[in-house]
C-alpha cells in the first residue's frame, strides 16, 4: 500500500463521515430550513472529499477528467437545487423557526 492509497482512503473515510453526519442532521434538526443546511454538508464537503479520494485511485487518465467534470457539475447543480427548494418553500409561505415561534407567542397572548 503506497502513500497515495493511504491518502485516498483517508479522504474517502472522511467523506463517508461527513455524508453520514449530513444524513443524521437531516433527522435531528428542527425545521425545514435548518434541515436544508444539514443536507448541504453532504452536498459540498462529502462530495469534494469522496471525489477527491476517487481521483487519487485513478491512474491520471480519462477517468480523472471525468471525475473532475462530475465534481464541477455537482458543485454547480447542488446549491441550485437547494436554492430552488428553499425559494419555493419561502414563496409557498413556510415560516422559519424564529418567525413561527414569535407567531405562537402572539397567539398564546390572545
Amino acid at each position: 500500500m503506497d502513500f497515495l492509497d493511504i491518502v485516498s482512503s483517508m479522504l474517502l473515510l472522511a467523506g463517508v463521515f461527513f455524508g453520514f453526519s449530513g444524513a443524521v442532521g437531516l433527522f435531528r434538526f428542527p425545521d425545514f430550513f435548518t434541515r436544508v443546511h444539514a443536507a448541504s454538508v453532504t452536498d459540498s464537503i462529502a462530495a469534494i472529499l469522496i471525489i477527491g479520494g476517487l481521483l487519487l485511485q485513478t491512474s491520471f487518465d480519462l477517468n480523472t477528467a471525468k471525475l473532475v467534470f462530475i465534481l464541477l457539475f455537482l458543485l454547480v447543480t447542488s446549491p441550485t437545487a437547494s436554492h430552488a427548494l428553499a425559494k419555493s418553500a419561502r414563496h409557498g409561505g413556510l415560516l422559519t423557526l424564529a418567525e413561527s415561534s414569535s407567531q405562537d407567542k402572539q397567539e398564546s397572548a390572545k
Partner: protein
Amino acid sequence: MHIVKWTVVLSIFWLLLSGYIEPLLLSFGAISVVVVLLVLKRMDKVENEPGHIGTSLRLIRYAPWLIGQIFSSGLHVTKLIWGSPDKVSPALAKISAKDIPPSSRVLYANSITLTPGTLSVDLEEGEVTVHALQESSIAELEEGQMEKKITAIWGENK
C-alpha cells in the same frame, strides 16, 4: 468570435468523455458538436447577449478559497449536528450585493448556498435573502469577505 471558442470547448469535452479515436465515433462527435453550435447560433438571436466563456483563470483563483470556506463552516455545522441540534438560532436577513457586478451575483448566491450554514433563499434587485443556522454567520457575511473576494476577481472586467 465565441462560436470558435465553443467549437474548441465542445470538441475537447467530447474527446475527454468518449476517449475513443475511431473514425465512426469521431464523426458522431463532430455531428453533435455541429448540432449544438447550430442551436447556439439560433439561441443567440433570441437572447441578445451571447454566452461568453469566461477565462477559467479567475475560477482557479477563487475555487481554493471557496473550498477552504466550505471546510471551515462545514466542520462547524457538523459539530452542531452531533452536539446539540436544538440549540440552533436560525436567522433570516437581507444582504446587499450591489457592489458585485450583475453577472457574478449568481456566483455569489451559489457560493453562499455551497458553504454549509448559510442558504440563499431569494435573489432580487441586488439583494440576497440569506437563511443562516446561526446569527454569527449572517454577521460574517455582512462583513463582506466573500463579497470583496468576488468583486476583486470578477469586478475588473466591467
